[in-house]
């Protein structure tokens, strides 16, 4: 099923032509209205008139998260505040939040792309969409909400938290589509099991999960525990919010990025050089329709690759492979690059091990140490010490085989690792503090 058949199946040449036209318009606009871009382009000795083909995009400088902080709060806005109808912001865990503003047309475009995304995920009018993304400054809640209304579905604006009530409402209201973070969906499943509620008795059919990197094994876990199809959605507030890209339910392989609104590039995160299609690197996105706060070559810090092969669903838009991590949650432990998702993939493939884990990174006598905390459940627990020690040995060995680093595995009691209602915090890095 398609929401906007014309644009979703546009021939590749037509997409490219549309992108170039919209890119040129966007560049003219930001050059005229945003001092940051004027200055940046001048330093790169380039003007919007120099961009004659999509290939010229590479000549433009990158925009970084730091640039948003430096221009806090409204410095990157391309329209006067009176044209901004909505303001969102990132959580700002490392200081001031990054602030984004939307014009009325931006909000409509966002709703359109979210409606497309819902349809790609297999949702339709008549669905009861249980939206457990947080409302508020975070873009997840309202982004999904407006898209679901645009689609014509019935939205339950649950927001995060209040887990017992979430389960009751899913039962009583007959929710058919769940939107939340992947880690929260597992928490819901766990809480439901404690309440004696079987997800197989619910009407839930599809879950649309995003806002944090997750793995294929977690998908299988969610699909089994919640008895649904689990769909990966991509977005970030700096670019739009949720709905920048989504997997189609037909393939569940790669996230279609809506190319009539965004131009994706993959770069080598160390050198900034553009990588050929299919190679893994950092995703860079340029927005070509946004009014409030257009983004030119924004470095997302997300690691992925582009899938250019045609998709079975008929959409012509290029796909992003499942995000394998973020350049900023990449851990460097004794010189080895490690993504939490790699450790997760080892853990979830060990029978009986819970997907709740935490990584503790520390420095002892100038040497980095990694401790993986894993919860013990009835399946993995034994009355014999040697069985538990074999389990920790096995995890240690598999991590060592996969990543080449030694770690300590600590078994902890169930529920001791904090459950998150938003993004899961997987890593506690105590080095340099």
């Amino acid at each position: 099923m398609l929401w906007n058949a014309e644009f979703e199946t546009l021939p590749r040449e037509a997409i490219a032509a549309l992108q170039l036209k919209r890119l040129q318009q966007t560049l003219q606009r930001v050059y005229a209205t945003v001092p940051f871009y004027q200055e940046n382009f001048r330093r790169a000795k380039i003007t919007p008139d120099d961009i004659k083909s999509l290939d010229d995009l590479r000549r433009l400088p990158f925009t970084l998260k730091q640039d948003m902080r430096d221009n806090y709060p409204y410095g990157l806005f391309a329209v006067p505040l009176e044209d901004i109808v909505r303001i969102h912001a990132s959580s700002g865990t490392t200081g001031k939040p990054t602030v984004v503003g939307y014009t009325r047309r931006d909000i409509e475009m966002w709703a359109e792309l979210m409606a497309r995304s819902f349809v790609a995920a297999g949702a339709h009018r008549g669905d009861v969409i249980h939206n457990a993304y947080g409302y508020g400054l975070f873009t997840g809640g309202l982004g999904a909400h407006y898209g679901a209304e645009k689609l014509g579905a019935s939205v339950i604006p649950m927001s995060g938290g209040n887990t017992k009530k979430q389960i009751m409402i899913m039962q009583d209201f007959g929710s058919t589509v769940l939107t939340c973070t992947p880690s929260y969906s597992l928490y819901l499943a766990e809480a439901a099991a404690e309440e004696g509620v079987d997800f197989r008795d619910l009407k839930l059919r599809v879950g649309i999960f995003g806002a944090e990197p997750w793995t294929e094994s977690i998908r299988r876990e969610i699909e089994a525990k919640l008895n649904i199809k689990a769909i990966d959605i991509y977005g970030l507030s700096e670019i739009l919010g949720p709905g920048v890209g989504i997997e189609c339910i037909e393939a569940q392989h790669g996230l279609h990025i809506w190319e009539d609104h965004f131009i994706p590039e993959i770069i080598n995160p160390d050198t900034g050089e553009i990588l050929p299609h299919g190679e893994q690197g950092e995703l860079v996105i340029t927005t070509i329709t946004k009014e409030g706060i257009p983004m030119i070559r924004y470095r997302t810090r997300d690691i992925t690759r582009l899938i250019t092969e045609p998709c079975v669903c008929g959409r012509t838009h290029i796909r992003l492979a499942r995000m394998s991590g973020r350049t900023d949650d990449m851990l460097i432990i004794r010189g080895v690059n490690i993504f939490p998702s790699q450790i997760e993939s080892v853990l979830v493939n060990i029978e009986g091990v819970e997907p709740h884990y935490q990584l503790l990174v520390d420095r002892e006598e100038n040497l980095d140490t990694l401790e993986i905390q894993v919860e013990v459940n009835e399946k993995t627990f034994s009355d014999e010490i040697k069985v538990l020690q074999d389990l920790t040995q096995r995890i240690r060995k598999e991590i060592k085989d996969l990543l080449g680093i030694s770690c300590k595995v600590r078994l902890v009691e169930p529920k001791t690792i904090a459950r998150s209602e938003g993004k899961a915090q997987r890593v506690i890095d105590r080095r340099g503090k």
Partner: protein
Amino acid sequence: MKVEQISIFIENKSGRLADVTHALGSAGINIRALSLADTSDFGILRLIVDKTDEAKTALKDQGFTVNKTEVVAVEVPDRPMGLYGILQVLDRGKVNVEYMYAFVERCGENAVIIFRFDNPEEAIKVLTANGINVLQGERVYSM
């Protein structure tokens, strides 16, 4: 002939053992025998109680990981070489002991030892064939 034992996973944190005994006590459960095996990170508490299933529920309600396993309670003559005699029988019968601990109470002239075998049926056969008394679960729970 087997006895039900519950085992509980506890992290090496102060107060956890107290939490277990409090949960059991509040549920009106009496501990018959107990053993704690520990490593630097965690311990496994093994208990024989008067009401196994109630104990399991009470502990699970408190968030503990609890398993039920079957062990064998054996009467051991309370005199020098008493335990040796039994271990010798087991050894000759090629029965492997996973772990064992002593029962706190006495049973007439004898002491009681709890054994965890990898093959309890075989162990019971060997013990009874050698005239060693293996206690029934009900007897142990109500001692």
